[in-house]
């Protein structure tokens, strides 16, 4: 037995790293709180521009030129119209950017998404706004836009009244082929979550963990354009048949809370392996909702999803009480766009105060952690520790990860 020497783990002000190296850190002009929208544009002049949606007001989104990943340069930073709205999520195809808007309370505006022309990154031009506001809607929390034609999103709607206020955002598909006239193409909600449904409302989680039965990430890939892979928060992982966009149909729903503590966030299919990687989101500080994990799910029979492993969690004793949230959150989502890294072997995700972590799932029964980077607590971090929120990996294997509160952008190199 090797006994303990005080090391950096005891201190949130020191970085921990394995197989990842920090290339650059950008504090985004003091507005370093980023949500879960990160996308890369390959501009017509050859520059690579990383666009990030802020976690909270006052900033809307920030673009950084990462052509040289060692020397990121801020290109533009925009403001929100007021303090009770957040953008949180964005996606890009070519020179078109979709930015989500979610308001603090129902009935407020802007609640929906904007379509921007970013062909000149320095001056994004608003094309139109898609309004999803309503008496029971907070608007859009997360968008998925990878084919240039449809926005898939977690959203409320003017005509939708949930049975429980926490269940306000559901899956919506919006046709944006005509950029100036976006139109809803279809929607799906968990039966029982809309007033008037014949199904009874779902049994709620313990009030301590009740976040809601609503959609979070709504992913659709060209390999299976007839499927939507949805993290449905307390409702678990959902697969929908969207071959008829106007009438999505439930294919599978893997529920694992309780006994677990809810918040299914991302469902990432690894098509060549017939696997789903499912990530939770930790939403409580100080380890209260632990464990929040990254699951490996056998999807050979998509109507019968079977969990077969979890990725190794970071050491609980080091991080649970280090400050802020400790648990899984966003994954790099293998976006089917030219600027995104795609791998069915390596899964990369953020863990709030436990940094960003990479897993080798080539043996899905026994995923191995192959890299991690835990930045030192950023200056003036409100929780006393870093809170890595989202991650994007570009086709050069450069890892971009962002702090939820203040630390801004960390650019990393995978050294394996």
């Amino acid at each position, binding site marked *: 037995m*090797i*006994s*303990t020497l005080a*090391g950096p783990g005891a201190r949130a002000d020191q970085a921990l790293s394995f197989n990842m190296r920090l290339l650059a850190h950008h504090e985004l002009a003091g507005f370093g709180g980023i949500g879960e929208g990160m996308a890369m544009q390959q501009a017509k002049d050859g520059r690579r521009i990383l666009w990030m949606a802020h976690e909270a007001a006052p900033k809307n989104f920030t673009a950084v030129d990462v052509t040289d990943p060692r020397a990121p340069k801020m290109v533009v930073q925009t403001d929100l119209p007021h303090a009770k709205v957040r953008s949180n999520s964005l996606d890009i195809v070519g020179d078109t950017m979709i930015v989500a808007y979610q308001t603090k309370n129902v009935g407020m505006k802007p609640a929906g998404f904007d379509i921007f022309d970013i062909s000149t990154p320095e001056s994004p031009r608003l094309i139109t706004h898609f309004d999803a506001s309503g008496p029971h809607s907070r608007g859009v929390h997360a968008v998925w836009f990878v084919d240039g034609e449809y926005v898939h999103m977690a959203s409320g709607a003017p005509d939708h009244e949930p049975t429980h206020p926490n269940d306000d955002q559901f899956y919506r598909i919006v046709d944006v082929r005509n950029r100036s006239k976006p139109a809803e193409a279809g929607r799906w909600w968990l039966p029982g979550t809309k007033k008037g449904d014949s199904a009874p409302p779902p049994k709620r989680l313990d009030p301590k963990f009740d976040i809601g039965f609503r959609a979070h990430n709504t992913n659709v890939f060209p390999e299976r354009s007839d499927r939507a892979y949805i993290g449905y928060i307390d409702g678990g992982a959902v697969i929908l048949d969207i071959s008829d966009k106007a009438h999505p149909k439930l294919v599978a729903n893997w529920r694992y809370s309780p006994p677990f503590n809810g918040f299914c966030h991302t469902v990432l299919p690894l098509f060549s392996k017939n696997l789903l990687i499912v990530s939770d989101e930790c939403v409580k500080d100080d380890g209260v909702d632990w464990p929040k994990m990254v699951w490996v799910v056998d999807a050979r029979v998509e109507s019968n999803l079977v969990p077969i492993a979890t990725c190794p969690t970071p*050491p609980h004793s080091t991080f649970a009480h280090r400050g802020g949230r400790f648990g899984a959150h966003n994954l790099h989502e293998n976006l089917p766009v030219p600027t995104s890294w795609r791998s069915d*072997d390596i899964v990369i995700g953020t863990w709030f105060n436990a940094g960003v972590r990479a897993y080798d799932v080539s043996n899905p029964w026994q995923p191995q952690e*192959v890299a991690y980077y835990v930045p030192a607590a950023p200056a003036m971090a409100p929780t006393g520790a870093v809170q890595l929120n989202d991650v994007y990996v570009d086709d050069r294997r450069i890892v971009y990860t962002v702090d939820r509160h203040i630390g801004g952008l960390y650019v990393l190199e995978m050294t394996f």
Partner: protein
Amino acid sequence: MVRGTIFSGIPVTLITGFLGSGKTTLLGRLLRHPGMNRAAVVINEYGEVPLDHELVAASSEQMTLLSNGCLCCTLRTDLQETLRELFVKRRAGEVIDFDRVFVETTGLADPVPVLHTLQTDGLLGAQYRLNGVVTLVDAVNGMDQLDTQPEAVKQAAVADRVVVSKTDIAGEDAARKLIDRVRAMNSFAEVKMAVDGDVDPAWLAAIAPSRATASEDELDRWLPRVIDAVSAMTARPHDAGIESFCLWFDKPFTWPRLNAALQTLTALRGPDLLRVKGIVHVEGEAAPIVIQGAQHVFHPPIPLAGGGRTDPRSRIVFIVRNIPRTSIESLFNAVGAL
């Protein structure tokens, strides 16, 4: 062979050498070197490496953190367990974020089983990788040891780096003779003379390619493009029938052919296959593959990243005991012709 997916892990460098060859002196120097910050050293014989009080920043029963940032750890159980525990503590931040490990083997040890530990333990494989073997040979007693001690011969044969020690006592002529003898066995190791263990840690640290994007220079440093003419020039018979050579292949392999050749070789002559290192082109792979083995154990082959690789040829270095080069050539030719 199961194909590995990634280059990963903290590089582990074995420091080996016969009793009295100067391992302790070398380690004592290394531990004090400013370039050793963020290194972990696993020493085998507790208490043998003397540490000055002022050098010690923190200490526990089996670990000492030195003031230069080097972590010194005593091996008490087996190496696998020690390396695993070290990583668990590193991951939990309970020890420094060490970025390389030096492991001292006992003077009488055959280094090959230690290589196997790193190549076959799946859990260790995700966390560590073999960087190389550094062997100390004593210029005063090395000749006698090579004559009489099979372990000493094997230690020199499998080395990536050879440090010839005590050259100040033995004199340059004796040292040169020893170097010639080592090169006759192992013409692919880099050799340096050192007095009082004065070796740059950087020379010991960067031996094997550390990443899929390794440059041609890095690959050449691991697998030098030397012509194995040195052994032919030496009149002395090879020690214990040990010799080293490099085979070049103009055409890419197929996976079945590469596997068949290596499997046949290990099945029939495993014990005499002291070390195999290669960079090989395989049909259908965008970039060359790195292969490594010692005796009957091969590390999963790992693909390099493509781009900028100009040499279309494959090369495999063999360090073998009593296997004629022509036999291995014939085997590869026969398999290639089928």
